[in-house]
């Protein structure tokens, strides 16, 4: 059984006074211990929503309207608040795009790290401090003892994100959920941070759910990949396989649109149209208006995820020639 098992997760938002629109339309996700999974999609596809839903952080007026989230066998959606606190921030940590969503600007870094530790286990201040400084060193922050007493604003963006990673690792979590952790950072700093996350997760056997829109980053860091479109998973499987031989037309479109896939001077392969908002979904498959492979049934029925070798694709006419694994 997987460490994290999400089944049929739905998140609903009010649409007008009497109706609801689904931001997540039945998502399944499995994560084994130490596994690194990438969740890729464009803005509005629901990938951040998925991360927040797993930790039950969906705030009003949204709500989790269906599904189950099992962590270590127990359904997170039905656990009492005390148990959730034991898991959130402790056994499952989260890293956000903006480090200032984690870091309190009026507290020193050290104070926040010690607080985090003491919130989840009985540990004295001196020991907590020692542990924190060790973690800061582990994320390659120079002079960790003095940084322990620094305030967040005294650090650059890249260093702050490292501190956030250190805090995420403080409690020896089993899973880290990282939501666009390097999107706002320069490319050289992104390389530093992502290689750090990769190594730390591998060395400590920590599971990773990496949410991003950047396919190259997932290619570098993750083992498995989930591509989302309009609130549903359209393709899921080993990262390498999906990137080399995408099965769903949207996956193929995303990869083909990358500048590195086209000769200089040639037009880029664009996908016509835009992703529909959750309130304006077409009938049938949400991608069919933009799909060059759409057939008659695509606008009537919604395709479900079907296994094709080691992948699962939700399409009535997936691209499979020579790609079976």
């Amino acid at each position, binding site marked *: 059984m997987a460490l994290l098992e999400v089944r049929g997760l739905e998140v609903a938002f009010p649409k007008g006074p009497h109706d609801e629109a689904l931001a997540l339309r039945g998502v399944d996700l499995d994560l084994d211990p130490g596994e690194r999974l990438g969740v890729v999609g464009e803005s509005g596809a629901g990938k951040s929503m998925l991360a927040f839903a797993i930790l039950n952080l969906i705030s009003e007026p949204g709500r989790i309207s269906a599904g189950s989230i099992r962590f270590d066998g127990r359904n997170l959606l039905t656990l009492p608040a005390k148990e959730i606190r034991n898991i959130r921030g402790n056994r499952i940590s989260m890293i956000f795009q903006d480090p200032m969503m984690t870091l309190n600007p009026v507290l020193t870094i050290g104070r926040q790290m010690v607080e985090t530790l003491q919130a989840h286990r009985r540990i004295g201040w001196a020991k907590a401090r020692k542990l924190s400084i060790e973690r800061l060193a582990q994320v390659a922050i120079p002079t960790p003892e003095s940084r322990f007493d620094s305030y967040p604003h005294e650090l650059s963006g890249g260093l702050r994100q490292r501190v956030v990673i250190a805090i995420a690792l403080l409690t020896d979590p089993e899973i880290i959920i990282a939501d666009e952790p390097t999107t706002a950072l320069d490319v050289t*700093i992104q390389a530093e941070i992502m290689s750090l996350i990769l190594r730390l997760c591998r060395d400590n056997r920590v599971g990773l759910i990496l949410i991003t829109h950047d396919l190259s980053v997932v290619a570098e860091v993750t083992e498995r990949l989930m591509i989302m479109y309009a609130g549903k998973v359209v393709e899921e499987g080993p990262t390498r396989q999906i990137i080399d031989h995408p099965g769903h037309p949207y996956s193929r479109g995303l990869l083909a649109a990358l*500048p590195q896939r086209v000769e200089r001077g040639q037009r880029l392969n664009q996908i016509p149209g835009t992703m529909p908002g959750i309130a304006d979904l077409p009938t049938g498959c949400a991608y069919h208006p933009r799909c060059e492979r759409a057939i008659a049934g695509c606008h009537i029925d919604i395709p479900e995820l079907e296994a094709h070798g080691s992948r699962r694709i939700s399409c009535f006419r997936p691209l499979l020639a020579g790609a079976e694994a």
Partner: protein
Amino acid sequence: MTALVEKRGLVEVRGLEKRFAMPTHFLSREKPVLHALNGVDAVVRQGEAFCVVGESGCGKTTLGRIVMGLTEPSNGEVHFDGTRIDNLSDSRRRPFRARMQMVFQNPYASLNPRRTVFDTLAEPLRHLSPQMRRAEVRDAVEAVMLAVGADPKWGRRMPHEFSGGQRQRIAIARALVTDPEFIVADEPISALDVSIQAQILNLMTKAREERGLTYLFITHDLSVVQHFGDRVAVMYLGRIVELAGVEELFDRPRHPYTRLLLDAIPKLEGGSFERERKPGELPNSIKLPPGCSFAPRCPLANDRCRAERPALLPAGPAEVACFAVEEGRD
């Protein structure tokens, strides 16, 4: 690609420097200064797509703004089509404004939320070509909207009714409406979704081919540079450290920073994030190091690098500002 024949320089910048005074307490004696640009010389040739790349703090946005006249340089000159324009009064600068336009990064902030799309597109014409009659203005706006793949009926609507990609189309239409020769594009696709980036980039390529445009394309995304650019200038801490044709730069990066930059790009083939990368010392635009600004991070730095500033000198078909390259140590 780029002919070896010396093309005319449409836009030239010489010795550009820009310093910003940092806000301080009025009683403090220190007056820190942010050195955004520290001596930039470049020539943008007619018809080319000249890319400027660098990370935050390198000065690329400031460069674009100075060329367009949004900021004044602390030192140096900007020339357009042979005439110096940075020191012109508003009225003397006017004839140039229709010829140089700009596309901005944030499609959600570059259109006035309280004006209709039509008004936003007509405004440059109404101001810069007052002799045009209303019907002519209308026709011109309609033509440019069709050219960017926008429905002319959008004219009546307000920006908030459109997605990011659509707004960027409208912004490009605004830049094209006066039929300019030169466009500065400051990160025009960074704020857009991946599948829309391709659409907009294609649009810009098409516009370039149809109208013979010259671009100054500012970006941090090297894969876009590789696809779209003719020549590229790599900037670090307010200076150009390497200038080369795009293919040459990617085949044979010479400056240590260029190499670092290219090495850091995540690759679809994977595998390059395996090794550890120590955090680099971050560039500080306020306390510029003496000597080469990259020296604190450079694996090849020697004493000369830390004391003197290297000039941008030819190295093969490229230009590089690096003593290691000059001295053959790379």
